[in-house]
Each structure stands twice: as structure tokens, then as C-alpha cells.
């Protein structure tokens, strides 16, 4: 695997398109909240009512959960487990792989059903996958457009933040 495959540079129009797809998915599925994260645990974008939970922690844990399931699949001779479902008393969570690039997480409650969420997920994942393929094909040199002087200022801030 090429490490660059986990390196992303998102443009404003990428986010607009991801958000539009996520919004449409949310409307169709009637999920409470939908999040898109990369496979290393970084939140890309989210839509819906997140009820104030810690989305950064969520992304990190969900990606680890998904990664662990992937390894379990391989142990069992499967290529991958493409989705994960966790059922709670008041809310449930459905996670699905987006072409190895990302994870779509849908949080939902009694206002909808797992079947409906699954169905809508199946429809939207190829669209997300196509968009990620386009983003991945572009130059992802992260620092190319950072302003001159940015590095020095970041280094100064690192010294200030990580001080006794």
C-alpha cells in the first residue's frame, strides 16, 4: 500500500459535493446524524443532529473499530467486512466502507429502520467512492499552498504550547 493513499487535500468544492451527498443520504435514510471519516480516524465532514458528542473522539474510535473488524475478517478468511452495525437501546450505529478510502457512519433511532438506512447507504456509497477516486487522483502535496512564514509561526506555537 502506498502511504500517500491516506494523505488528502480537500478543496472547497470537494467538501460541497461531499456535504451535498451526505445531506441527501440523511434526508433519504432519516438517520439522525451522518459522519464521513477517513480510514485513519480523521473526521472529514458531518451532517444532521450530533447532539453535541465529541466528533473527533468518535472518528478515532470508529476507524479503529472498523480497522479491527477488517483484521477479524481476514482471520476468518474473508477479504473484508464491508459494514458494521451496533445496536443500542435508544440509538444505533451503522458503519460502511467507502472503497477503502473512508467510512460512512450513520447514527439513527426509532424514527427509521436499519433496512432503510442500509438501502440508502448502498445507493450513496458508489457516489462517495467516485468522488474520493477523483480527489485521490489529484496532486496531494499538502504544503504546496501554505503561506510563506506559516512554518515558522507553527514552530513558534509548538514551542509555546508544549512548554512546562
Amino acid at each position: 500500500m502506498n502511504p500517500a493513499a491516506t494523505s488528502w487535500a480537500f478543496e472547497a468544492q470537494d467538501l460541497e459535493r461531499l456535504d451535498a451527498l451526505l445531506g441527501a443520504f440523511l434526508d433519504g435514510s432519516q438517520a439522525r446524524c451522518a459522519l464521513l471519516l477517513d480510514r485513519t480516524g480523521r473526521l472529514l465532514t458531518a451532517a444532521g443532529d450530533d447532539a453535541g458528542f465529541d466528533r473527533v473522539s468518535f472518528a478515532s474510535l470508529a476507524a479503529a473499530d472498523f480497522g479491527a473488524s477488517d483484521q477479524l475478517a481476514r482471520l476468518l478468511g474473508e477479504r473484508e467486512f464491508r459494514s458494521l452495525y451496533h445496536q443500542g437501546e435508544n440509538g444505533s450505529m451503522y458503519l460502511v466502507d467507502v472503497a477503502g478510502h473512508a467510512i460512512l457512519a450513520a447514527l439513527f433511532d426509532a424514527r427509521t429502520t436499519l433496512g432503510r438506512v442500509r438501502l440508502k447507504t448502498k445507493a450513496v456509497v458508489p457516489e462517495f467512492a467516485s468522488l474520493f477516486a477523483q480527489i485521490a487522483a489529484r496532486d496531494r502535496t499538502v504544503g504546496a499552498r501554505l503561506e510563506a512564514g506559516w512554518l515558522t509561526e507553527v514552530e513558534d506555537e509548538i514551542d509555546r504550547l508544549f512548554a512546562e
Partner: protein
Amino acid sequence: MSMINYASREINCKIVYYGPGLCGKTTNLEYVYNKVRPETRGKLISLATETERTLFFDFLPVDLGSIRGFNTRFHLYTVPGQVYYNASRRLILKGVDGVVFVADSQAERMDANYASMQNLYENLAEYGYDPRTLPMVIQYNKRDLANAVNLGELRAQLNPDSLADFEAVATKGMGVFDTLKAVSKLVIKSLG
């Protein structure tokens, strides 16, 4: 490896603390959590056993704030050090931007340090990383213990490429921030 979002103007970088069991990786993160300004850090998440050994990972997001319009955030992770948790270690390395190798200075842990370093290289290779170009620093922890090996020997065994290295007593905070500063700066430079 890193992620830059030009729309929300965010940069996210992943730093992983690696090393043998009980070398002090979690202690490093706990010290950082307790010492940085509360508004700059998120929750410290620890997936640990009942005996407080890391089972999967610890996670701490630290936010540098907005600099020239870009919000820069470091995601700090530890891996479980015990040999049989290798599948978990490999998972956590996915997408890594920088590594802190935490070595245990005690003489009886030298073999474990060496084995963990080899294991790190093997796991990095599986993802296609070149350890010679990946930002990495070494921390020699537990320098306060009577059975600590001298620095020259540690360097000869664990740091043949003369990476930036630091002596530390993570329980007291000594060397923790110096280590983190060094790896963060290497990671930031590697973005350019």
C-alpha cells in the same frame, strides 16, 4: 498521511508513540494531557485492560489553534506494547505522519527495546513507509532508575542513524515536551 482541508482550513497530523510494553508511552500522553492548556486539547481516550495496560490505543487530540488561517491539529496515539498485540499496533500505524519510539532505559529491557524497534520497521514496511524518511525521534525513558543503561550504549543499540533523541523521566515530565516538540516540528516540515 496528513490531511489538509482547504474548505474548513484544517490540517490534521497523526503522531504515534511506539515502544515495548511498560516503557511509558501512555505516561507521555497523560503528562501532555495534564500540562497543556485545557482549551487546546480534546479528551484523552484510553482503551486499556482492567490492569491499566493498553489494550488497543490511547488517543489525545491537541490543537495548535489558527495560524495564518489554518487550524493545525495533532492526533497523538500510543500502541499497545505487549508483543502479542501486533495486529493492533499495525492498525494504529495506518496513516502515521510521525513516530516517537519510547525506549525503556533499564538493562533488562534492552532486548525488548530492540525487538520493538524491529517490529516497528516491519509494520512500517507493510504500509510501504520508508523509515529513513518518516519523521521519527527516540526517547530514552526511565533515566532516573538505578539500572538504566548508559546513553552511549542505548544510542549504539537503538539509534544507529543518529535521529533526534531525548532522555526522559516521563512520570515526572522530564523530556516529554522536548520529545513532542521535536517530532511535531519534523512532521510539520515534512508537509512542505
